[in-house]
């Protein structure tokens, strides 16, 4: 399986492809509406000199967009999640559970938690698909 450099557009494209071709995702996410952004706080020692902004847009089982973006676009998403690089890496490697990480202050969420809970299967599926991608992390390269 191909390896991708994490936090790059190629990595996000691979993720988008995985979601777009997952029949299971399409079924689970048929009610999901709206965009999610992820903000990765800078950590120069780990190879993240500047914050990274990712924007994802999903609609009724379709994945419309997953792309690097600027701060303004990230902050315009329906749900804005932010956290340190090391935390995001733990999420992407399934070392921590994303909902637990939120409640324990390891990640931050701006938006309606009840919507996330109502659609927790969708959220978990998207993360599961991300975990399937073999990635090279900036601090491991």
């Amino acid at each position, binding site marked *: 399986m191909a390896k991708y450099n994490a936090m790059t557009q190629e990595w996000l494209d691979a993720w988008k492809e995985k979601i777009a071709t997952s029949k299971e995702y399409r079924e689970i996410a048929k009610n999901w509406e709206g965009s999610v952004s992820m903000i990765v706080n800078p950590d120069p020692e780990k190879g993240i000199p500047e914050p990274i902004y990712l924007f994802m847009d999903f609609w009724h089982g379709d994945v419309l967009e997953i792309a690097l973006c600027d701060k303004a676009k990230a902050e315009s998403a329906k749900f804005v999640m932010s956290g340190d690089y090391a935390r995001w890496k733990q999420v992407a490697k399934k070392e*921590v559970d994303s*909902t*637990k990480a*939120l*409640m*324990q*202050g*390891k*990640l*931050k*969420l*701006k*938006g*309606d*938690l*009840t*919507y996330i*809970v*109502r659609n*927790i*299967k969708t959220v978990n599926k998207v993360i599961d698909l991300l975990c399937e991608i073999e990635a090279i992390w900036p601090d491991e390269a």
Partner: protein
Amino acid sequence: MAYDRDLSFVYFGPTKIVFGAGTARDVDMEMAGLGCRRALVVTDPGVMKAGLVEGVLKALGDRCVGVWSDVPQDTGVGIVNRAAAFAREKGADCVVSVGGGSVIDTGKGICILLTEGGGLENFEGIQLLTRPQTPHIVIPTTAGTGSEVTCMAVILDERKGQKILIVEYFNTPRIAILDPKMTEKLPPLLTVSTGMDAMTHAVEALQSVQREPIADGLAMQAIRLLHRDLPVCAENGADLAARGQTQLAATMAGWAFGNAMVGLVHAMAHSLGAIARVPHGIANGILLPHVMAFNLDDAAEGYAMVAEALGVRERGMDEREAAEAAITAIRSFLERIGHPLRLSEVGVTDEDIAKSAALSLSDGAIVNNPRPVLDEEEVIAVYRAAF
């Protein structure tokens, strides 16, 4: 006790506890200790009428710059916004909440707005704040919610017709003053229902997918104290020693669930509150044994600890037998304290059940339930069993 070998968790509980009969009068010294000089007192009409605020105001003297007593049973964003504007106008530098859950959550909301400005509707979310908020001293007048030590607030957004959740470590109350005299006049039904809220916090913390040893220890002791002293309070509200122990139990259960979280009982009780206006503690109490039966296969270990704390785990019982004994003991405890036992007794209808079941699936508490709940029918079945 078996925990995952790779157990990893965060425990957060920074609130200072001041305990003892008459300690509400120490509020001025506690406030001075925080470096504050101008308090806004937040309360509700019932607490005012019960005469519980007078002593606090007397102790504060001119350190109290205003009293906001316009807090309803379920507080809202509009109320918090108006109260915060009032606090700002008066130049308040701290908040003293005297009341139950709704008053305390109002106080929490005001603290954020005094520090951050703006309207509370902009703060829906989890761990968004980056600095300590306005100091908050809480003097609870019930022994149940545990809100005096948690970082969470639930506040109705009147425009959206939906409750918003605000979870902020930086907004945890600095000091909780647990004065048994403040709960002395609580009538028996309110005493037992708020007590069962605390009991449910403790039991749900022990069954949670996020359970951990610190929270478990607090939950166990909370159950022991409630089991011993809640019946005493129900019988004789003026027993200040028993009142004090149940207050401490509620606070310990608050720390337990504030870290380990609650589960299906709370998800279902929140929904019944929203749809059928069933008081939170009563809904929890009625539902607790039924949800325990539903979770049994996935939570036997935690429930065996409940049995231990309730003193019903006998020698030779395996985990499952102990868990079953815990369920039976909770049922008889409810009877003993005169708590309602069935949803039909408190005015719930078939239609309420269907609506509440749908709503439960989107409640934040449900993700921490030991048995995954993904289907409305499962929730309906539990409601029916409690009907």
